[in-house]
């Protein structure tokens, strides 16, 4: 009974504005996945049906996470992290190769992407590690351990190979280390080292990755091949104009110029931008801004450092996804396979995002408790 009242109290103390924008984004996602996967019949496409199921599951996970005290999540952080690493290692054994990357596995009949879980696991453990009493990130040994905690899943994901997902770990680690008090000179060093690493890194990239980068600077390089998605998503977003072509009227999508395989997933924003125009894109951007501000609000309101780092980590992860996903459609960054949080089709990422946001809400809901 007592825990029951705690749960209800936690829900009541949630940040409902942030939650509302989260729900709105989920609904937008379902609507436009329907638009992007709509065939001639009026029925809900299979993709839409599955996304609804994922959304419902995600919402359940979200409320569960809100109800749970985030500190109990902190207590099991090492176990979660270890579990994630085991799953990532298991991929080498039972992983399935899809589109050139071994990032999927089937576990107890469930299809899942361990790299999505690993992002959350890494945030959780990093937040716990950095918030340990007397932990000083200026201390090289602590910094070294922290970097190793991020580096392990990073390298494992890179081996799949999934450069996009692996890269999401870097900004969140940077943001969390920064908030944890990383001296500015270290950040300067990271920037310099990063720039220097870019040159040899170029030669470490696979051919297709190098091609993507080249195409980014010159989309006409191979319009029917690698540059196709870049050009077509640009046309889709651009031809949306002020107010778009109307819901379900996006010709780029209907006519298959935006490939059907990526329109509901990585390129869902192109569909939204084409059908709703600049007005729609701006509203979408605003919803994400509210969501991220909500996470930061939770970080500021958090009663402890663990909660603060947790919220910042989740915010940084989501921010990176949102920015890269939207920016690639308008040619600001190269094409990468990063989905748009809450909106793109996909179960693992949906549930992980909801879990992360639930934990952030849990931080916020427990702001005054002692």
């Amino acid at each position: 009974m007592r825990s029951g009242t705690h749960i209800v109290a936690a829900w009541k103390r949630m940040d409902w504005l942030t939650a509302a924008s989260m729900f709105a984004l989920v609904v937008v996602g379902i609507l436009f996945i329907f638009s992007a996967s709509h065939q001639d019949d009026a029925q809900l496409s299979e993709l839409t049906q599955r996304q609804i199921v994922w959304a419902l599951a995600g919402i359940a996970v979200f409320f569960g996470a809100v109800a749970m005290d985030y500190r109990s999540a902190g207590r099991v952080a090492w176990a979660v992290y270890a579990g994630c690493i085991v799953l990532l290692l298991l991929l080498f054994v039972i992983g399935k190769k899809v589109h050139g990357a071994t990032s999927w596995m089937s576990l107890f009949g469930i299809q899942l992407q361990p790299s999505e879980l690993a992002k959350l696991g890494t945030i959780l453990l990093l937040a716990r590690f950095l918030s340990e009493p007397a932990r000083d990130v200026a201390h090289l040994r602590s910094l070294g351990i922290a970097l190793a905690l991020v580096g392990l899943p990073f390298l494992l994901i890179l081996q799949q190979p999934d450069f996009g997902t692996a890269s999401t770990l870097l900004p969140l680690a940077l943001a969390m280390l920064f908030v944890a008090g990383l001296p500015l000179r270290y950040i300067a060093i990271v920037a310099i080292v990063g720039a220097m690493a870019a040159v040899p890194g170029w030669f470490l990239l696979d051919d297709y990755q190098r091609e993507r980068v080249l195409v980014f600077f010159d989309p006409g390089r191979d319009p029917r091949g690698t540059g196709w998605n870049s050009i077509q998503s640009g046309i889709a977003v651009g031809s949306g104009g002020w107010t778009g072509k109307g819901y379900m009227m996006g010709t780029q999508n209907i006519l298959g110029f935006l490939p059907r395989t990526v329109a509901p997933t990585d390129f869902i924003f192109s569909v939204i931008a084409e059908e709703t125009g600049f007005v729609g894109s701006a509203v979408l951007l605003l919803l994400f801004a509210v969501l991220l501000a909500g996470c930061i609000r939770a970080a500021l309101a958090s009663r402890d450092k663990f909660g603060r780092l947790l919220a910042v980590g989740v915010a940084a992860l989501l921010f990176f996804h949102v920015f890269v996903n939207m920016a690639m459609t308008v040619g600001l960054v190269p094409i990468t396979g990063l989905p748009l949080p809450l909106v793109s089709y996909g179960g693992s990422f949906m549930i992980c995002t909801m879990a992360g946001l639930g934990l952030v809400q849990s931080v916020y809901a427990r702001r005054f408790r002692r």
Partner: protein
Amino acid sequence: MKRNRPFDDEFLRVRVVLAVMMLFFLVLGGRLWHVQVTRGPSFEQDQLKQSLRRVRLPGVRGRLFDRHGEIVADNRPSYTVSIYLEELRQPGKWEKTINRVEALVQELEGVLGVPASLSREEIRTHIHRRLPLPLVAWRDLGPEAVARFAEQAGRKPGVEIQAESVRVYPFKRAAAHALGYVGRADIEQNEEEPYHYYLPEVAGRSGLEKVLDPYLRGEEGGRLLRVDATGYRRYDFKQREPQPGRDVMLTMDMRIQQIAERVLGEDAGSVVVLDPRNGDVLALASNPGFDPNEFVPSIPARLWETLNTDERAPMLNRAVAGGYAPGSTFKTVTALAGLESGRCDPNEHHNCPGYFQLGRATFRCWYHAGHGSIPLRRAIEQSCNIYFFHMGLEIGQPRLHEMATRMGLGAKTGIDLDFEIAGLVPDDRWKRRTQNDAWRDGDTCNVSIGQGALVVTPLQMASLTSVIANGGKLYRPRLVRGVREFGDGPFSQQPPEVVRDMNWDPAHIQLVREGMRDVVNGTRGTARRVALPGISIAGKTGTAEFGRKDERKRHAWMIAFAPFDAPRYAVALLVDEGISGGETAAPRMRELMRGIFEADDSEARG
């Protein structure tokens, strides 16, 4: 809550994180503004360009009718079996789809019993160049094949039988040269809005089909298609209906045309029948000919080769493009020139001993025994050369030339047909230019009897006959009677065009006409065998030598008009190689006149 410095620092850093994120969002928002609002229209253009396809729809061609409303050039549906490659699309490489199409074609060849002759390369080209358009595999299938298709393959996916509009000439070979034929032509492309897909246009290639093409040709329509990324047709965007061409009523009378062709039989030659009251071309025959139906939908290469290398020149429209010496039919011109000059008295007699001495040269009359002393009217009736030598020399070359030219020789008549030639009425200047020699009296003698360098066409001679028949009005021979919008409304009526009024002395023209009546009806006329009971016909025969003298080749001419008092028909009849006008042309003229008046009677009664 107590706050120490590091804590403050931590909150500040959290705010910095938010600020950085919002800064990136602002950049993203600005970029979206740039792409969607500033550059939106240009992306919109790119989008249309890659997804819109223009398809050209041909307009139905107007029809040709004869003066009684008989259709002489019509459109008929031609059954075409087409394959829709989009519907047969196989996943994976296009080669798989091509395999599937080939298998289907083979199967259908079995059903139809007609080979398709579609190469793999043609299928591939079609896929790349005009995927949303049907690939035509069989054209112009016969009724049995159409029936078999409907029975056995009517519901196969990706195959469809369609009716395409093609030209048909119900009178087959009749009037083929005048009507001409159509062929496939490439279309005109508008550079701003080019058609992506089109079928070759049907265009007039020769004859009336060519000359009247601006009337007959329909106005193209168009359809805008939306295609998807793989070139599949998704839906029609907009359509502009094609407009059919206009119907044209000709002056020709297909009954007379068919009689004219019948009298020529197997012989090379030409017949032109005009209405002297207005210049209407009632018949325009040229033999040998061709069947323009065999040129539809396209001319078989071998047939074309045969037709164009045949010595008898079946593609030549002799009526307007065949140049011949007029022979004695030209004596009518000499007679009129003489009378009109005022220097010749029709009652003056000239003696014909059968030859004519001009300096050291001797010119012969065709009647070697000589006609004796005769006046002009007898000279026309008996076609005496000697009389016309005297007359020609009396008036001189310039007057002869002027009369011939005024009567329409040496210039195009201006009929609505292609390839018309002007012919030639020689004069001093011409001779100096071509032979570097001065005009001599011998030349005048030759021209006076229609020999020498004179070149005329059967149409010119028919027109000349018409002027004599109507007493002096030269009409432009016309083939078009009226035009109307496609359908069954009334035709517009075009007025006849008078080119020139001769202003002849009525006594002079009457004398020539009577001389011509004697040719048919006189006791010594050269064309007595033309005479028909109940119809008063007047005419003039001609026999023109050509080629080497020892070959003795002769064009056999006869010009005639009837009825004598109020002529409705003026005819020029030519047989390329004959014995003489009287023997070769005259019997055919009789046959033609009888046919014409029989048809006339039945019309009057009916």
